[in-house]
Every structure is written in structure tokens, then in C-alpha cells.
């Protein structure tokens, strides 16, 4: 009988928890969502380090990550072999690859990569999270797998309607159960769906060349935990291969490239202990320090510092017209601060009630890649919803009370009188005014009598925006019945634009009316 290892058992448990949390990152009738929903990110040491490096501050939200980092000092890289869902997925897929024995990634490369990414963070550009293993997996699920899955089920469901008509309702109990517990409410197609899939695919494809290739040779999180695990006191004995057996070399997924166990790469799966024919292998606590270095620390440090410094500056470019449409989720006031904290995990995008949030594409510059942008023409910010702030692991999107959120300015709506029907075509419309959620209406209208295109006098209701009340939720742009470009559009306010250069307006005392001036 194949022996069932404890690490595999925990891998499956954590994988199920991970999927459960992922599927439940969705509005299910409650205004509040459990804080546990983003635990995989808050317990994530890489997120912790990138946060520390880029903001020079600490948040108690990431306390679980501190615990995990500390336990790595004692137990080694157990995260990789016991918890990491991407690792579990890799372990699952590796059997489908015919191995080609070729080392395609130089073994020291990962140190340069991690060092480079950390220093880029240090100089203000937090892109390390783009390569976070959990984020890679979540983005793959959020942007490609889950919409595809939802869309496939939906297609079948719609197909049944086309065949059976109303008789399909006999199955509706089953479908409604799926819909309210598993499936996404809307089958949104996201930009970067293919790109997210492609990154995930590459990570898996690396298995062709080596087992746990990604974990061993690239993963910045693994590298970071590996560096810490060098101090770990939980050790394998014997350190090397036994002369008479050497099976460990084949059993071990990561660390027996050489004849001595590479402690930094040991993911604590403990398969060697389980499968040892002679019961010789043991994992024991031993405080005696033994630090062997197999790379030049100084060279890595200097190289990554230099590349980090010079690269940090070149990620910032993007075109100004995109800037004025780069609307952030409610509560984000300081663009620079936001970018430093944002994990690019896609949780806010997944949970967004009306699918207003989308991941930024390269149009918005490399630095903004995968960060959330609100696209009002595709979905608007629901007035009574505060979910994005709740799921954000680092509170890059602040968690606001409902009262506060209803006043938070995302942008400001501006009429385009060349398109807007009452102005351009002299016909009544007012769909935007109807939908404006502000109790006093941020869109109002004046009644005027004008000649229409045929010279007939008509009574027209002409809408206008009350700047002091508009919060830029975007429902007006969303519902505008014009088929192509909307007659009203939301832009960033002057102060939000400025925050990119001079920091938050939240800290200075600018009156609300001044904030609202659109530039």
C-alpha cells in the first residue's frame, strides 16, 4: 500500500480551504464578509516583506504573516510543502510531464530575482507581488478559470432553455443551488484572462524540466522562506545520502541535487522519512548552527540594489488620457500609497458586486498591472456596498463604514453635451438622473422650452451635475442609453490626480467643495 504522508494530508486540507475561501469571495446576501476570506494573503510572508520594504511601516493585519515567518525560523520551509496551494497544484500536475533532465534556470538566479524585486519595492515600486505564488494562483482562478467555468455551466443552462423552454424549471433547484453556492453571479470576461492563465501555465510547465522547478528556482516567496529556513532548528538527519542506498535523491522533490541536503530548498514534505527502507531518516530539533553559503551574498546584494534602483524609475510611464480614467475603488485617495500596498491579488475585483473593477492592463503602465481600476461603462460602484475594502488584505483599499463610503469620492461625473440626448438631440432622456443614488440627487435638471430639430417647441429636461454631491460611483455612465460612448463620463478629480505627485489630500485640510473641482 502506498503510504500516505502527513504533508499530503495537510496539502489537501489547505487546498480545500483555499478553494472554499476563493469561492466564497462573493456577495451572498450579507453586507459583511468574514475577515478570514483573505487569510492566505494576510499570512503571506512575501506580502509582509513587500509591505515593509515599500511603505516602511507595519500593519497588524499582516500579523499572521509574522507568525508564519517566525515559525519558519523553527520549522523551515514547511509552508511550501504543507500549505501553499500553488505547490499542491504543481505536485498534482507534475505527473503529467515526461521529464526532460535539463537545468534551464541557473540555481542562483532566484536570489538575484528576490533581491531585485525587494530593492525595487524599496525604491517605491512594489511589483514583487506580481510573482507571489498565491497571487498567481488566485489571479488564474479569478480571471480565467472561474469565469470560464461559470460561463460553461451557464451555456449548458441556456442551451437547456432553448431546447426545453419553461420545462427547464424542473432542474432549477439544482441550478439555483449551484448558483447561490459555487458559481459566480455574473460570467464576466476580464482583461488579462489569457495572461493570467499563461503565467500559471508557465509555472506548471516548468515541471517538465525538474520537480518543483518553480518553487526551487524562481518563487520569490520560496526563496525568502528558504533564506530564513537556513536558521531553522528542525533538521533532517542524516544530512546527506547514505552510501548504501541513496533513494532519497529520487524521493525528494527539491533538495537532493547534490549529495547533501540543501536545507534552503527542503520543503519539509518528509517523504524521505516515510519512505526510508531502513528507518534511518529522522527529523529532529537541533539548535547547533550550521550555515553553509553557496552563493556570493555581496554580489547578489550589490547587483540587485543597482538593478533595483535603476529599474524602479522606468515603470512609471503611461499616457495621460489613461490617467484621468484610472478610477480606483472607493477610499483610495493617495495613488502612491495605494500602489505600495496593493497586493495585485484580485480579491477586490472578484468580489465587486457589479463587476465595476477590472485588472489594469499594460495600457496603464507596467507598474499598474493587475491593480484594480473602476470602469463605469462596464459596471458601477454600488452605493450600499463596502465589500472591496473588506476583502483587501493590506487595506490598500481602506475598510470604510457604510456611512463613510457613501461620501467617499471616486471621481466626478461630467456631461458630454455633444452626446447627451437632451443637449445634442433635443429629446428627453434622464436615465442618469433616475439612477443617481445620492438621496438629494447629484444629477438634477432644469426645464427649458426649446425648438427641436423640426422647429417645434418642446419642453426639455436638461440634466447637470452638482459637483459637491457627486461621488463618481459611475452608475450614470453605466446606464446611459446611448449605444456607443456614454453622454456622461466619470473622471478622476483634480485632487485625486494630484495625489500621484504630491501625496494624499486626505492629510491636508482641503474643503470638500475644492476637492470636487474637476480639472
Amino acid at each position, binding site marked *: 500500500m502506498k503510504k500516505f504522508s502527513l504533508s499530503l494530508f495537510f496539502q489537501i486540507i489547505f487546498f480545500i480551504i483555499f478553494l472554499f475561501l476563493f469561492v466564497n469571495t462573493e*456577495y451572498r*446576501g450579507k453586507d459583511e464578509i468574514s475577515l478570514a476570506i483573505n487569510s492566505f494573503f494576510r499570512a503571506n510572508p512575501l506580502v509582509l516583506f513587500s509591505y515593509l520594504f515599500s511603505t516602511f511601516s507595519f500593519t497588524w493585519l499582516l500579523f499572521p504573516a509574522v507568525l508564519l515567518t517566525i515559525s519558519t525560523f523553527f520549522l523551515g520551509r514547511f509552508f511550501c510543502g504543507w500549505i501553499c496551494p500553488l505547490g499542491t497544484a504543481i505536485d498534482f500536475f507534475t505527473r503529467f510531464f515526461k521529464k526532460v533532465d535539463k537545468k534551464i534556470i541557473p540555481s542562483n538566479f532566484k536570489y538575484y530575482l528576490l533581491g531585485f524585486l525587494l530593492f525595487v519595492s524599496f525604491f517605491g515600486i512594489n511589483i514583487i507581488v506580481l510573482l507571489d505564488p498565491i497571487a498567481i494562483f488566485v489571479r488564474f482562478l479569478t480571471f480565467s478559470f472561474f469565469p470560464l467555468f461559470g460561463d460553461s455551466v451557464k451555456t449548458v443552462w*441556456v442551451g437547456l*432553455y*432553448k431546447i426545453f423552454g*419553461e420545462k427547464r424549471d424542473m432542474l432549477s433547484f439544482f441550478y439555483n443551488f449551484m448558483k447561490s453556492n459555487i458559481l459566480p*453571479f455574473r460570467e464576466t470576461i476580464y482583461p488579462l484572462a489569457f495572461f493570467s492563465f499563461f503565467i500559471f501555465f508557465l509555472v506548471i510547465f516548468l515541471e517538465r524540466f525538474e520537480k518543483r522547478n518553480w518553487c526551487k528556482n524562481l518563487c520569490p516567496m520560496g526563496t525568502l522562506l528558504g533564506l530564513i529556513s537556513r536558521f531553522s532548528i528542525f533538521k533532517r538527519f542524516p544530512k546527506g545520502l547514505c552510501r548504501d542506498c541513496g533513494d532519497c535523491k529520487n524521493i525528494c522533490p527539491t533538495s537532493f541535487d547534490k549529495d547533501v541536503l540543501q536545507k534552503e530548498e527542503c520543503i519539509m514534505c518528509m517523504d524521505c522519512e516515510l519512505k526510508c527502507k531502513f528507518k534511518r531518516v529522522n527529523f529532529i530539533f537541533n539548535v547547533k548552527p550550521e550555515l553553509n553559503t553557496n552563493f556570493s551574498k555581496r554580489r547578489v546584494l550589490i547587483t540587485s540594489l543597482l538593478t533595483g534602483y535603476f529599474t524602479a524609475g522606468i515603470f512609471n510611464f503611461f499616457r495621460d488620457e489613461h490617467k484621468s480614467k484610472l478610477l480606483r475603488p472607493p477610499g483610495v485617495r493617495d495613488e502612491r500609497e495605494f500602489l505600495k500596498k496593493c497586493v495585485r491579488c484580485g480579491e477586490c475585483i472578484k468580489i465587486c*458586486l*457589479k463587476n465595476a473593477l477590472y485588472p489594469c492592463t499594460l495600457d496603464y503602465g507596467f507598474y499598474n498591472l493587475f491593480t484594480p481600476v473602476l470602469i463605469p461603462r462596464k459596471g458601477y460602484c*454600488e*452605493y*450600499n*456596498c463596502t465589500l472591496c475594502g473588506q476583502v483587501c488584505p493590506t487595506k490598500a483599499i481602506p475598510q470604510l463604514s457604510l456611512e463613510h463610503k457613501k461620501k467617499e469620492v471616486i471621481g466626478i461625473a461630467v456631461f458630454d453635451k455633444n452626446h447627451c*440626448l437632451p443637449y445634442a438631440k433635443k*429629446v*428627453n*432622456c*434622464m*436615465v442618469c*438622473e*433616475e*439612477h*443617481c*443614488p*445620492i*438621496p*438629494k*440627487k447629484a444629477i438634477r*435638471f432644469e426645464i427649458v422650452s426649446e425648438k427641436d430639430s423640426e422647429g417645434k417647441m418642446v419642453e426639455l*429636461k436638461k440634466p447637470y451635475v452638482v459637483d459637491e454631491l457627486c461621488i463618481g460611483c459611475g452608475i450614470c455612465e453605466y*446606464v*446611459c*442609453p446611448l*449605444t456607443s460612448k456614454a453622454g456622461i463620463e466619470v473622471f478622476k478629480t483634480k485632487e485625486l490626480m494630484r495625489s500621484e505627485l504630491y501625496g494624499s489630500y486626505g492629510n491636508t485640510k482641503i474643503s470638500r467643495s475644492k476637492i470636487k473641482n474637476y480639472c
Partner: protein
Amino acid sequence: MERRNFLKFVGSSLLVNFISSNISKASEPKILALAEGRDYEKITRDVINALGSMSRFVKPNDVVVIKPNIGWDRTPEQAANTHPLIVKAIAEECIRAGARKVKIFDRTCNDPRRCYETSGFNSLFKNLKKVELKHIEFERFKKVNLNGKFLKEWELYDEALSADVFINVPIAKHHGLTTLTLALKNIMGIMGGNRGYIHRNIETALSDIHSVVKTHLTIIDATRILLNHGPQGGDIRDVKILNKVIATKDIVLADAYATTLFGKKPEDIAITVEAYRRGLGEMRLSNVRVIKV
């Protein structure tokens, strides 16, 4: 039969039919029931019974669609949606009259999940037998040939079209474009496609739809009415408590009467006027018998 005789026969039968139907119309005076009270379920049952019980509309084994307004993510106090208790009372009356199934739905403006939740509908209709509170499924919109003055065709919801009985249950409230939104406008909840399009000629469009879709019973929720900043409201100060419910077979009449609750005349509302002109119902309140319960 000879051709001449045949034509005589057909002609005379058509004439008889025409006269008799007109006589029956004339002999049945327009009735509108109005009830007032704090117990919304009771006053709803009262207005229905004043019209002669639900079994006059719902026959055993019928499928009934109740179309309330659940369009907004607002609480019942904010008076943007039909009060769920009124809908509940109607649904129960339908079941008592022998309905096979009662379906309740609305194409919402805000997120449907939030609307159904905040409006109080979700919690109230969870365990009611034979009553289904459903979300709109977009594949079910069917292109319908309207041949109207403004709308030639439009997508309408199949379940509303195929129902044996269609009951329209709006809430009476203010509306920026149309001054008030009542039963005639509530039909927008079964419209598919880009609904905002019809705003440019809304009174004609709505009459076009009502010429095709028959409403069997209209019950207007005027327990709380929204006087300003409609149709969404949000400010309790814009809400006036009236504790009234109106019921009638004639949808135009329902709207015309509800208008007076706002201190306005039926002629002030273009939608009502257009529907009356198109022969969809009565708007002259002098021709109406109001039964107050």
C-alpha cells in the same frame, strides 16, 4: 350555404357580438377599491375582496405572475420598492383561489441580489409554498412584435407573457422624467434590452407595450409614497405615510386615481393621458365608483 346567406350570418353575428360586448362594458361601471390601515396584509386582502375576491381573477390551476417594484437597493421605509407584505398577501390570496404557482420577479436597476435582500423580499418569501421569488434570467427575454407607434418590437420576459394571470403591484412614487411612476411604468420590469432607450418617448412606448401585454389586476402600494427625489429616494424626509392600498382591474384608472394622492390631476401625467387616448383604460374619475373599505 349560399354566399349571400353566409355573409349575412357572419355580419349579423359580428354585429351582435359587438353590441353585446359594448353593452356589457357599459353596464359594468368602473370600480376601484381603496383601503386604509396599518396592517398592510389586511388592507391588501380588503381591497381584493372589495373587488369580489381573488377567484374572480385567478382560476384553479392558473400560473400567476406578480410584478412588484423591487428595482432598488432600498429598505421598505425608504419607499422605493413595493412593500413585501402587500405582495405576500396577494400571493396568499392567489394560492387560496387555487393558483398552481405564483411567480414574483422584477428586472432590477441596482444589483438584483442586493435589491431582493434589502427590500425585504428575500426573507419574506423564503418558505412560502408554491410561491417563487426569482431572479431574471436574460435568456428568457423574447422578442415580441408590438407594432406600436414608437416600439415596433421589444424583448419581453417570457414568464410574464405566458402567465395566466398578470398582477401589477407598483409603489406610487415620484419620478424625475415622468413626474410619477405608477402601474403603467412598472411594466418596464418585464422589459429586456436597453430599457433606457424608451425614455426618449416613454409615454408612447409604454402604451405600445400595454396594448400587447394584458394586466389582469392592478394593486398600487400607497402605504408610503415618495414625494421627491424619486424613483430611488433614500431620504426618509421625502416619504409620506398614507397607509393606503388601491386595487382595480383597470390599470389606467389605478394610475389616474393614485395621482390624486399626490395632489395632482390625472391629466398631469403624460403616461396616463397617452394610455387613456389609446383606449387602454379610463382616466376620468367622475365615471368611477370608489369602494372604500
